């Protein structure tokens, strides 16, 4: 178990589901109920992951959890990075908001809500951000059509 997982486990035992290193990047998968505690533990812990680089999501329609959240954390001092992952759930995807840990997560989570329809519990301002406010559907879901106009002669290719 890596230092990062140990840090999380020390604060919230049982939060870490799995961890692995792929292409030199450390990924820690946590249970979605514990995401806020895990983030807070890493921010305040000895690793000093003070910067939340990015919050994003990817859609896997065949997986039971379907929406896989990815939180990219960075350390200002050492430049080391860790990715936290959590599955938000297929039906009515919802996960705790980390805006209480980093206020900067506000827009990133709004973007994920706008594009994927994942709801964030405890978010102060959860509405659409990129698409028009009355847009229907969540464009980055895999089952959302790309739209646009058909290009001539596409069928000939």
């Amino acid at each position, binding site marked *: 178990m890596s230092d990062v997982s140990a840090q999380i486990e020390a604060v919230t035992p049982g939060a870490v589901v799995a961890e692995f290193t792929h292409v030199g990047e450390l990924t820690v998968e946590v249970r979605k109920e514990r995401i806020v505690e895990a983030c807070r533990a890493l921010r305040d812990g000895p690793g000093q992951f003070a*910067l939340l680089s990015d919050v994003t999501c990817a859609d896997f329609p065949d997986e039971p959890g379907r929406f896989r959240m990815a939180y990219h954390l*960075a350390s200002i001092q050492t430049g080391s990075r860790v990715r936290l992952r959590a599955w938000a759930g297929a039906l009515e995807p919802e996960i705790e908001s980390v805006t209480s840990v980093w*206020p900067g997560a506000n827009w990133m989570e709004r973007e994920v809500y706008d594009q994927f329809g994942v709801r964030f519990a405890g978010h102060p301002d959860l509405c659409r951000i990129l698409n028009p*406010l009355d847009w229907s559907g969540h464009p980055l879901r895999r089952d959302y059509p790309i739209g646009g106009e058909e290009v001539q002669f596409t069928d000939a290719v």
Partner: protein
Amino acid sequence: MSTTDPRTENFPLAAESREAVEGALREQRPLTPTERVIAGVEAYTPEEAAERTLANEMLADIRPGVRQPLLINLGPNHPSTHGVLRLIVELDGEVVKEVTPVIGYLHTGIEKQCENKTWWQAITLVTRMDYLAPFANITAYTMSVEKLLGIEVPTRAEWIRVLLGEMNRLASHLVWLGTSGLELGAMSVFFYCYRERDQLLDLFEMVSGERMNHRYFQVGGCAQDLPPGFIERVRAFTDEMPKRIDEYEALLTGNPIWKDRMKGVGVLPAGDLLALGVTGPTLRAAGVPYDLRKVAPYSGYEHFEFDVPTSTEGDSFARYLVRVQEMRESLRIIRQVIDGMPEGRVIADDRKVVLPPREELAYSMEALIHHFKLVSEGFMVPAGEAYAPIESPRGEMGCYVVSDGGPKPHRVHMRDPSFVNLQATAPLCKGNYLADLIAIVATLDPVMGGVDR
């Protein structure tokens, strides 16, 4: 669109207010703060409206002459908001009480479209995200794909990436300086900056064939070698450029109007900026020397000697000084690159990923097959995910790619510094004058193409 909800039944809502209410109605939740601001007073129910009027009257009774807040709308088409940014500002007299940025007016759906293109076709699209830093966009994207593929990029290609990335930083900062000057009334700076930017774009055109939106970097290296004579022209440019930067500084740094409008405007402690995720010159101007080129060197930045300019004031003037100093540091790096440019390949030698040289198609059957496969189907990327952060002119630009093992990306996400930095607008502007808001937004340097993607 008609609706039977009592909230909107008796009120002739403007189209936009209706839009804001529509989404909340569909999900059966109350309006969020942003939606409430966009909907404006028209979204109040009769009872709410009466309540507020009453409250104002009572206030007026207690404190005669009490001022009511004034809501004004800057943008999305405003000459000083750096593109299609919309700011809804609540003013008390001339002092900003609250700012609500509304973005998405340039949402282009690039991330969605990347999922429908092959890995190498997506390069064309990511270039157009942050249109002032096309080389930074491609570097982040190709680096993340290379991570998944496990390709070694040749040293010469890495150095070319550094060279063009730093020239890109110069070009981007020149646009920032020129337009900021324009917005704050220093028009001549614009002409000075664009004079040099034209020279830079000539060099970009020489190397890639296009003035903007270059698709010069490939997965595995660069599309071509540098053209003959390029290094000499870059050297001539770097010899001339320091004098030009002196000219800008002579126009601005000591200028009392410029100083008055910039100094002490838009200050936020470094801790707050960090909590908001702000990176780049904005964070460095507040005293945090966080530069990915130093902290986590990529693409061979560890070979070059340069300083990370910082300041402790954290105001708009400090951000200006840091950026100007960064231009000088970029020139320093460029000089080191052209002095020590190594020889060798400019793209990795992996026929499963990299297009074969053009002339080989004339005599080699394998080359033809590889070419055909790569162009028609694309290359396969092993399943997994990768995140490659780089230091763009505006801060940390990261590319998160997820592959399912096929020829098309499963997910491409750009962590754009403009998007994250723009969140700092509201806390930075609070309590400043309306005119200072322009200075603050100008020195944050958001590029809306990157914000909205």
